[in-house]
């Protein structure tokens, strides 16, 4: 991992001082301020220079600063899988000319992220092949994440105004002069598991063109976050990837704690880790089960769901909620675990492997399942990285990138576990990776239980966390802390931070900007399945229509996280 100076020197070889690239001091990662004229060449250089090797574009987002002369800022986050280093680019643009060159030609991952920035802020990306709204509906007026947009202002969509790809309206003949057929899958369709829509053109049964439409569950997470206090955002994070709610909260809390400079007590960290790994198992149960269900195998889903119910009961005992837990607080956890927590987790450690074993006996060597999934929906490692994939789907192509190993948090570096990798990159490989990940997660939980010591579960820094209730009743100072926190909320220092964790679907990033007030100034979520799903229509081409179902559920697209 080259250090900051060496990376800057590598950039300065092509972009000397005065060429529109300025390094900003400080920050949680190396940050460059880039003039928009210099952006395309810089992007190419960052990707192709072997010393820099920024092959993975994680995120593109806009930020609105109404007071500034250059009102909008487009922020790019990049990482190198080879060297492990990261960089942030900032491109400021004026309100009356909000145009930035598109980097789609360098990283295809920019495709949907740029469309989202256009939708939310009205920033236009020159050279983007399909720049139109992505999350909001076509009858929407204005750009909702601009600071002057009223959070409650709705626009109604009528049935006739729904989005239709332009190519879907044209009749087309194949080489034998038979008309091809356009088929609409979703958004309410048994195999889309939620609200995803794909329009495909069929030649016989083979898909020749596909386009995906998302945004049917756009619940305005980022705008809502700006109108709530820092701790109030946690329930909203639960509803991003609701199959594994705990991990979203942990990622958010870690990102904010990094800005505050506080750390959760050891017991809270271990509990966070245990519940995160159990959530990973829960998430993979739903994904693998739904995938099997979609290719016609209902039984394993019923087996596995029993395990999920038992996992739920442990979570419910901890915080009172089965699914959307809101258990994390900034600086720790909301309450301590029940006295039988360790016993019930130990029971699960015996119970879940048995259920996984049952399912594997039925499925892993099953000829029908292998026939439906092997070679279906395959993607190469280069393409997957180019599209911005992370998580199990990327590891199924042979790239062993896991945030828990590459940039450990919560003490993952001290646990003994392996990162499962497959090489085919197809639907079957994704199944194998997920099954093995469940087993590895249980290994981590087993080790973590040994380290669970009694102790406080939330930090005693009362700028962040409320003092204990009995102290509030008896001590003047605690009462004042309590009053200030309730009335004014926690204050996070001015600045920005990109916190990232390994969620069930891949790297879950929170880019957080604080202006020092009681509310977040801007929170941008980098949802892993957003990057994964943008490659979906391209994977589909050449496949049979029945394969769409097998491929889609193997990618584990969770609409809450996709559309936010």
């Amino acid at each position, binding site marked *: 991992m080259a250090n900051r100076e060496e990376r800057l020197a590598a950039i300065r070889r092509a972009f000397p001082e005065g060429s529109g690239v300025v390094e900003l001091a400080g920050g949680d990662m190396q940050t460059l301020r880039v003039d928009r004229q210099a952006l395309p060449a810089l992007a190419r250089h960052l990707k192709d220079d072997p010393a820099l090797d920024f092959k993975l574009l994680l995120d593109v987002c806009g930020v609105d600063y109404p007071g500034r002369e250059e009102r909008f800022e487009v922020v790019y986050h990049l990482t190198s899988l080879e060297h492990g280093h990261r960089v942030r680019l900032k491109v400021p643009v004026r309100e009356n000319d909000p145009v930035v060159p598109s980097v789609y030609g360098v990283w295809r991952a920019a495709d949907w992220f740029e469309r989202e920035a256009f939708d939310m802020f009205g920033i236009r990306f020159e050279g983007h092949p399909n720049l139109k709204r992505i*999350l*909001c*509906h076509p009858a*929407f007026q204005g750009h*909702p994440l601009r600071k002057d*947009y*009223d*959070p*409650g*202002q*709705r*626009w*109604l*969509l*009528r*049935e006739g105004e*729904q989005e239709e790809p332009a190519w879907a309206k044209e009749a087309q003949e194949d080489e034998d002069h038979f008309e091809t057929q356009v088929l609409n899958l979703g*958004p*309410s*369709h*048994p195999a889309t*598991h*939620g*609200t995803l829509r794909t329009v495909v053109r069929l030649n016989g049964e083979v898909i020749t063109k596909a386009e995906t439409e998302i*945004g*049917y*569950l*756009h*619940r*305005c997470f980022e*705008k*809502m976050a700006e109108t709530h206090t820092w701790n109030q955002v946690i*329930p*909203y994070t639960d*509803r991003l990837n*609701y*199959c594994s709610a705990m991990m979203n909260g942990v990622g958010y809390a870690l990102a904010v704690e990094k800005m505050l400079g506080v750390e959760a007590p050891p017991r809270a960290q271990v509990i966070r880790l245990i519940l995160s790994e159990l959530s990973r198992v829960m998430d993979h149960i*739903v994904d693998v089960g739904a995938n099997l269900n979609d290719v016609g195998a209902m039984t394993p889903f*019923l087996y596995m*769901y*029993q395990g*999920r*119910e038992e996992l*739920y009961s442990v979570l419910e005992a901890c915080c009172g909620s*089965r*699914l*959307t837990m809101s258990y994390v607080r900034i600086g720790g956890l909301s309450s301590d675990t029940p006295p039988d927590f360790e016993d019930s987790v130990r029971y699960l450690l015996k119970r879940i492997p048995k259920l996984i074993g049952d399912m594997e006996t039925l499925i892993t060597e099953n000829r029908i399942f292998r026939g439906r999934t092997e070679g279906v929906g395959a993607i190469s490692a280069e393409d997957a990285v180019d599209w911005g994939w992370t998580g199990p789907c990327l590891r199924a192509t042979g790239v062993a990138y896991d945030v828990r190993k590459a940039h450990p948090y919560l003490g993952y570096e001290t646990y003994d576990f392996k990162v499962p990798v497959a090489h085919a990159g197809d639907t079957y490989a994704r199944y194998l990776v997920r099954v093995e990940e469940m087993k590895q997660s249980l290994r981590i939980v087993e080790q973590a239980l040994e380290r669970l010591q009694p102790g406080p579960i939330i930090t005693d820094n009362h700028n962040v966390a409320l003092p204990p209730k009995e102290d509030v009743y008896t001590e003047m100072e605690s009462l004042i802390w309590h009053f200030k926190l309730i009335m004014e909320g926690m204050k996070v220092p001015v600045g920005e931070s990109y916190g990232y964790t390994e969620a069930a679907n891949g790297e879950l990033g929170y880019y957080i900007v604080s202006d020092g007030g009681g509310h977040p100034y801007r929170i941008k979520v980098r949802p892993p399945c957003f990057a994964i799903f943008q490659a979906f229509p391209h994977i589909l081409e050449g496949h049979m229509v029945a394969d769409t179902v097998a491929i889609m559920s193997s990618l584990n697209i969770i*609409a*809450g996280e996709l559309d936010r």
Partner: protein
Amino acid sequence: MGNPEVRPSLPVVGGTGTAGAVAKQPDGSRVFLTTKLEKLLDAARKNSLWPLPFGTACCAIEFMSFMMSHYDISRFGAEVVRFSPRQSDLLIVAGTVTDKMAPVMVRIYEQMAEPKYVISMGVCACTGGFYRAYHVVQGIDEFIPVDVYVPGCPPTPEALLQGVVKLQEMISNGETRYQRALAAKRASQAQAGG
């Protein structure tokens, strides 16, 4: 009906007392209890609801629990889930409905054959929940009529089971929106005719 001591030995439909049933005299001969056809149909309808899960968000995951073996909705005769609106009579809207999704929901509701019932599962579907935001429908009753609201974020499977049982009670008492609209229509026709 003759003998007042006759008690139905084989109740075909549940115990409202007004439903029809085959009864046996003490000597073994059969008699029939009479009822209105409407009541008999309602009893059949309430015990075999065919839900269409319009699952959009987190609630759909709890809906899965509600279907699976642990909570098992089939105990209440409503386990046959159909994704085609033409084959189902109970629309369960599980999750947040956005303005982008609303026309789809309305279309699915309109495609369902009558009689049809709607359960709104979760606070998002009921009122928009804590998403008081620019892209979220503030309660699906802006667009379609709702019979039972099940609060919770998400509701537990028990709560949804109770919602289904509540709907069954409403059907047998003629309280659903469909039944009330039908009754009102008949009353106005009778008035016009009489």
